[in-house]
Each structure stands twice: as C-alpha cells, then as structure tokens.
C-alpha cells in the first residue's frame, strides 16, 4: 500500500503546483485558441476537407496538439526539481523509483487532460458537438498522453539544463505534431511522407479522436489503441529505467 500512497503523494504535489501556477494553465489554452481561431478560420475560409469545414477538421488535431505540447514540456519540471534539489528529498524517501516516475506521469496526464477539458467546453463555439463518445475520447487521450508525458520525463531525467531540454523538446515535438495529421488528412500523401506519419505515435491519437468527434478516420479504433498502448508501454519502461539511473 505504501507505494500507492507514495504515487498519490507525488501526484498531489504536481497538482498543487499546477493549480498555483496559473500562467501555465492560461498560456496552454491561449495557443490552441490561436490555432483554431486564426489558422482555422483563415485557411477554413477557402479550404474544406471532404465536406468538413477546415476549422472543424483541425479541432481534434488541436486538442491533441495542446496535449502533446503540455505533456512533452512537462518533462522540464524534472530538471527544475533537480536544480531546486527537491528531487533529492524525494529520492531519499523509501519509495521505489518507479513509483516516483508513475506519480509524476499521472501528474502530467492530469494537467494535459484538464487542459483538454477546457477546450472540450469551448467546442460548441467551433461548431463541434460532443456526445457520449467523449468517454472514449478521454480513454484514448489518456493512453496517448501517458506515453507523451513519459517521453518528456525521459528527456527531463537525462538532461541537465532547461535550455538543453527546450532544444531537444522542439526537435522532437514539432515533427511529432506536423507528421500526426493534425492539420491535414493522411490520404493522398506522397509515399515517403506516409512512412513518417505511420511511425509517429501521435498520428494514431489524432486519428482515433477525429473519428470519435467527426466520424472520419484512416485506421480502425482497435489499431489506434494497439499502437497507443504500445507507445505508452515502451516509453514508461524506458522512463522507469531512466529514473533509476538519474543523477541528482
């Protein structure tokens, strides 16, 4: 039981910090709104994709984008925890390193899902109507975000400086975003690009959520889930290992 209490303790701390740093919540909501309002209506005025208004078409993609950026960026807080020596105090407690890792992951997942929730509340303004599918959407988002937060934490545990993290993060996050099909449909792509979109785990998140919201998808939900679970499993195994080896 003590490990579960420990995971809960780490999660609770992350949530308190998230709640106190209001700027984090606000800034993470602003940027997707810019995408939706400016990019979405700008391009949407002349483009529609298989009968769907462009702004509506990218709505699921922008939800995933918001989760992607928040989740990956979350890894930088591990570097701050190291710098502030907070992590030493956690490491000296009789908790398994894996519990510390999963507590952190759940903290990041909660942050990302709370932000997604705010966007869901705004969905009607963008003419997107969510029904009971929302439950499934949350399940898919949870698995996707679990993997992405783990990936961010892997970088955070290896790297020593926030600057280095920023660099690596943008080198990884932007390709993950652009290749995911968040902004364009995956059909009719040149074959070299198709290969890259297929190895991007975020693709399967966007695909599933777009299907659940708008009814058009490229793969089956089962296939999406299999890839997302695989991604989450691999990153969390590597992440746990990195936390065990982490220098503090």
């Amino acid at each position, binding site marked *: *039981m*003590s490990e579960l*209490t*420990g995971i*809960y*303790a*780490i999660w*609770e*701390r992350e949530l*308190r*910090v998230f709640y*106190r*740093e209001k*700027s*984090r919540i606000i800034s993470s909501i602003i940027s997707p709104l810019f995408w939706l309002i400016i990019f979405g209506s700008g391009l949407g005025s002349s483009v529609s994709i298989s009968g769907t208004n462009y702004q509506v078409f990218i709505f699921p993609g922008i939800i995933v984008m918001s989760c992607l950026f928040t989740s990956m960026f979350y890894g*930088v*807080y591990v570097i*701050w925890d190291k*710098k*502030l*020596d*907070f*992590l*030493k*105090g*956690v*490491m*000296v*407690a*009789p*908790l*398994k390193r894996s519990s510390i890792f999963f507590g952190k992951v759940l903290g990041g997942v909660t942050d990302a899902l709370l932000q997604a929730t705010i966007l869901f509340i705004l969905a009607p303004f963008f003419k997107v109507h969510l029904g009971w599918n929302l439950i499934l959407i949350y399940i898919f988002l949870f698995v996707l975000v679990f993997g992405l937060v783990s990936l961010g934490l892997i970088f955070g545990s290896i790297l020593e400086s*926030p600057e280095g993290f920023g660099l690596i993060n943008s080198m990884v996050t932007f390709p993950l975003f652009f290749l995911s099909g968040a902004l364009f449909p995956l059909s009719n792509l040149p074959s070299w690009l198709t290969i890259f979109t297929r190895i991007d785990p975020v693709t399967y998140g966007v695909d599933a959520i777009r299907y659940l919201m708008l009814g058009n998808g490229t793969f089956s939900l089962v296939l999406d889930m299999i890839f997302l679970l695989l991604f989450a499993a691999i990153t969390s195994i590597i992440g746990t290992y990195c936390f065990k080896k982490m220098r*503090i």
Partner: protein
Amino acid sequence: MVIETKNLKKKYDDLVAVRGINLKVKQGEIFGLLGPNGAGKTTTLMMLATLLEPTSGTALINGYDIRKQPDKVRRQIGMVFQDPSSDDILTGYENLRLHALMYDVEKSIRKKRINEVLRMVDIYDRKDELVRHYSGGMRRRLEIARGLLHHPKVLFLDEPTLGLDPSGRKQAWGYIEKLVQTEKITVIITTHYMEEADKLCDRIAIIDFGKVVAIDTPENLKKQIGGDIIKIKSDNVNVQGIKKLKFVMKLKQIDGFTQITLKNANEHLQEVLAIAGKVDSVEVHSPTLDDVFLHYAGREYREEGGEGGWADRAMTYQSRGR
C-alpha cells in the same frame, strides 16, 4: 552501534573523494564529521543515505546494509541536505504532508505529527504560507522538521548552519539540541565550523582528504594537544633557543608562524618572547579544535566560504521557469 561503516570508499574518475572510512556511532550520540570543504564529508553522508553508491566497503545503519537493503535503510534515516530541498511553491504544511505520505506515516496520526514537528521548530504559525516567503533560517528549520517527521532512528544534517548569520546559527544549534533531547535520536552532522562541532557534538571525527585522522570527544581531542599554545608570527625566530626551554613541549613551524605548545603559557610568555627575538605578533590561547586539526592534518585549518552552499543556491534558484 546505530551506524558502523566498514572501509567505505568512493572513487570518481580522477579523484578519490573518500579513502576508506571506519566509524562506529552509538545510539543517542551527536556525532560530528569535521573537516575543510572537499574533505569528503558530504560524499560520506550521501553514501550513508543510499543516494550515492560506494566504490567499495559498506555501512550498516541500525543493522541494515546500505548496499544490500537501501529501502530498509531509507526508512531508518531522516536527511537534511546542505541545499534546501523543500518545494518553495508549496506551503510548509504541504511540504510536510508530501513527505508524510511518502514515508507512509499512518493516516490517523499524520496531521498530529506534522503539527507537532512544526511546533518543535517554531513555524507552526506560518505553516500555511508558501515556502518561498520563508527566511533562510525558517527554511532550514522546515527541513529539520521534515527530517524528523517519520521518527527516524538517525538524522543526518549536512552543514546545517551553512549560510546562516551568527545569530541564526546559534538559534539553529538550540533547535538541534532540543530535538535530540525530545526525539531521542542519533544525529550525524557534517560541518566545517570548528565552533559548531565543539558546541554540538558528543564525539567528532576529523576528516581530511577523505580519511579520518582522529576520533574522540572534543575535550579529549583538545587534551591531546597537552598544553597551552603560543603562536608567534615572525620571519626569524630563535627556534633552537626556545626548544631548549624545559616547559616547552612541542614546536612547529608552518606558513611563517611558529606554534609552541607548553604548560602554563601565561606564566612563561615573557621568557619565550625574550628568547624568540623580534616578533610581528603573538597569540596565546588554550587549545581549540583548530589546533587539533593542525596537529593531526599538519596544516592550518581554513574556513572557506562554503562550496556554493545552500544560501547561494537559494538565491540562484529563487524562481524557476514555471
């Protein structure tokens, strides 16, 4: 024995930080590791706290091996780091709650125990303020409270007063002494302040270049010097003449100083000075731990300004990128 180290060693690529340390610490003692910066005190402490893997050797803490049973060891110890490790965006209470949960302090007594340690270090009144608004001394006390929260057998204090002003330091000593009495625990303290070791510790291990050069009570260590000390600053002292005096026990020359150990320095000062010749300055005192260090390490003890200690760090990382 609560702690027993067995030839504990730590080697880095091109540096041997700890060269085989053997210590035995008794239940209820305040045991000091005294030495200059870089002597290996913190490295030793980090190994005992299972945060650093020893290169060879091991240690037992309350019977548990730091290498084979690190999880068990962590339950036995409380740790107060050199640098503040509380989260400054949480309140004092929330920091303690986090640690109470991590140590699985039973739910029924959790709140009571947190408030108890907060009162012990006199920050109960400000427990609901964010730690970033605490003074340096308060943060230190919060760390001490946190170290005690789960009733550890042993409390490690790494340079507990580094970066505090003299009054803050005296106050911290008062708290540490009080805690040892109320909690009845064993305390291992590292310090490079002679005065601190002298005032607080029941026994001291003097560490220099990763080795223990002496272990005893502060009184016994000082007694081993054997007499009083006259320290003369001069370029040209009549060493041979002074050595011939009957009451002179020992004479050492270091860095332009001549240190004479003798009985009843006050009585014999005139005689010594008459023979010494022209001197720049003279100092007479009963032995201090500085003299003990000089005696064992063979060089002057210097209190350097800290190794980018916790106060500096607190300034540097006052805010994070959140």
